[in-house]
């Protein structure tokens, strides 16, 4: 058999059928569309209500409700979760999700449940996400799950409805890209810096139409949390998803998790999962190679995630869209960001809301004091992350330094709930998007790692680490 990529192996194992999709204008393009079987489907309160309504209107029911898992994360408050959600517009979608899950027998991790949290944090944490699977969710950051060596991608609500109704989707097979980084990362360079560096090189549209395999020493040596941070932001370079070949790090992470195979079944699964890697000589449509040593702690200066530079760098010359972004941010070409005062710090989200992120933040602020001029939101990605923060003694460190911990949710990543950055204010954020208005109307976002965020939370300005 011809050499295949990791992506090919998973894709091929999920083809229900190929349907003719001739493209006379481009004979080189795939001439068929694939009906792809979906192993795991995650849903949340924002992109699923209309899908359930659509099913009802067509007289349909979920086909395999046992393969769908639900959580409420986007709309929920991150304080006072034991009280009813005050804002009707936030409460109604959450209640609608609960009702839909109950009616159709779908597992729902509701607020305050020990398994609750951001959809892309709890899927892996519960062991629902496994190597070799096809995984979808009505959320672009579904790419996160690719860290386990699975094909995971974001879909729209019409597609959520299709998966509920048939457990399949019609998809054109994407092109494939490989990004290889060998060598050792410098001190204080985190997975977030790696992906911000990659996006700054590839561009926000460089990955469009592609799935990305991350290969090389840097990803091999990365923890699962780190791989998730990297894969999570694949979408920010336009890619549908990203994946890392599963290895012993992956298997050890999954061992004993609630929904992972147990005992002998786990060992059998490991044997199967071990075949999931790109064969020697397999071809990619695009290849990039970077050096680990070239990557520094990063920060973004513009209004798309591709506008990133080293923390101590100088804002480069920009094109038209870039200049519009600088105007919004109140920055100029040729300016340095080091030393700039900031108003908010947000640590959390499906990108950097995992235990390692809070360990890194706590490690930096230990024995220091929070700046009185900065509002800091520390939001764990899940109830399990919150528990670990307590168990590992991180909460004491944070409290002593003057920080408080909120409850799990998407929080200030997207200004859908009560955590919003006011207009004109600067926020150093560990989330994934610095788009205009993303964290609140007029809010100015700079993306960075939890360590860069910690330094600013202490000093009140963008600081060297």
């Amino acid at each position, binding site marked *: 058999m011809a050499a295949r990529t990791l992506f090919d192996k998973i894709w091929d194992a999920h083809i229900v059928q190929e349907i003719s999709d001739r493209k006379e204008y481009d004979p080189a393009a795939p001439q068929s569309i694939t009906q792809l079987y979906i192993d795991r489907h995650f849903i949340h309160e924002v992109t699923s209500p209309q899908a359930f309504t659509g099913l009802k209107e067509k007289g349909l029911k979920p086909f395999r409700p046992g393969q769908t898992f639900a959580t409420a994360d986007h709309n929920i408050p991150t304080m006072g979760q034991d009280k009813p959600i005050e804002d009707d517009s936030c409460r109604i979608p959450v209640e609608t999700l609960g009702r839909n899950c109950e009616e159709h027998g779908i597992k729902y991790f509701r607020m305050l449940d020990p398994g609750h949290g951001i959809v892309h944090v709890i899927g892996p944490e519960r062991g629902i996400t496994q190597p070799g699977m096809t995984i979808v969710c009505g959320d672009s950051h579904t790419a996160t799950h690719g860290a386990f060596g699975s094909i995971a991608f974001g879909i729209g609500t019409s597609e959520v409805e299709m998966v509920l109704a048939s457990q399949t989707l019609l998809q054109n097979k994407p092109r494939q890209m490989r990004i290889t980084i060998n060598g050792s990362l410098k001190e204080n360079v985190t997975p977030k810096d790696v992906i911000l560096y990659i996006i700054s090189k590839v561009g926000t549209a460089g990955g*469009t139409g592609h799935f990305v395999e991350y290969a090389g020493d840097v990803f091999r040596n990365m923890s699962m949390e780190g791989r998730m941070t990297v894969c999570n932001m694949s979408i920010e370079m336009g890619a549908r998803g990203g994946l890392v070949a599963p290895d012993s790090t992956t298997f050890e992470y999954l061992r004993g998790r609630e929904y992972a195979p147990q005992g002998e079944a786990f060992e059998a699964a490991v044997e199967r999962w071990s075949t999931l890697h790109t064969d020697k000589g397999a071809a990619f449509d695009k290849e990039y190679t970077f050096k680990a040593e070239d990557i520094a702690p990063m920060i973004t200066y513009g209004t798309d995630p591709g506008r990133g530079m080293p923390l101590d760098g100088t804002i480069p010359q920009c094109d038209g869209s870039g200049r519009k972004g600088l105007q919004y941010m109140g920055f100029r070409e040729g300016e340095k960001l080091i030393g700039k005062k900031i108003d908010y710090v947000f640590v959390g989200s499906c990108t950097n809301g995992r235990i390692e992120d809070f360990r890194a933040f706590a490690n930096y602020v230990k024995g220091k004091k929070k700046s009185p001029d900065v509002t800091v939101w520390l939001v764990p990605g899940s109830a399990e992350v919150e528990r670990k923060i307590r168990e590992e003694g991180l909460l004491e460190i944070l409290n002593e330094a003057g920080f408080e911990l909120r409850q799990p949710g998407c929080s200030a990543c997207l200004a*859908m709930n009560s955590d919003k950055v006011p207009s004109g204010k600067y926020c150093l954020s560990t989330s994934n998007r610095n788009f205009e208005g993303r964290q609140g109307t007029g809010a100015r976002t700079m993306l960075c790692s939890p360590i860069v965020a910690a330094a600013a939370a202490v000093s009140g300005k963008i600081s060297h680490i």
Partner: protein
Amino acid sequence: MKAVFTRIENIDTDQIIPARFLKQTSREGFGKAMFHDWRYNGDGTLKPDSIFAPYEGASVEDKPRILVAGRNFGCGSSREHAAWAIADYGFTAVVSSFFADIFRNNALNNMLLPVQVSGEFLEKIFTALQQDPETSIEIDLAARRIIIVSTGEWECFPIGEYKQNCLLNGQRDIDYLVSTKGLVESFEKERK
């Protein structure tokens, strides 16, 4: 058909519809919030220089039907609300030199046609609309052709035969997928 244009590139779905408007649990009525922060000031008053300003309060017949925008349109969040909002406003097609993947699928699933043209042709459309905002753009889906009526310039755009037929005949993926249940069941049995 009447068109409106912006040269801005990388228009993300947070621009098309900010997250705070995603709380409604039905598909209808998102047109009001389409490009909300481009159209309205913080106090709810209209921004007079927005590309949509001339059409605020206009009837559906007087509104533009084609949105022309810079490359990498619809990047970012997968929210289908972006496609719903654009369609609900009254647009039937979006023209750009490049579309983000998820937006393209969402648009097609809502019978909103994403028309991908070359960078050069996009520039021609911008120029024609800049010179005369009333310039008519025609899109012929059966022939996969987009035409600037005033100059007669045209280009073919890519769309696979499958989706082309779906759009021409008003067929939706979901109806087909549900009809394959038997096939899906045998797939599940075989892989066990």
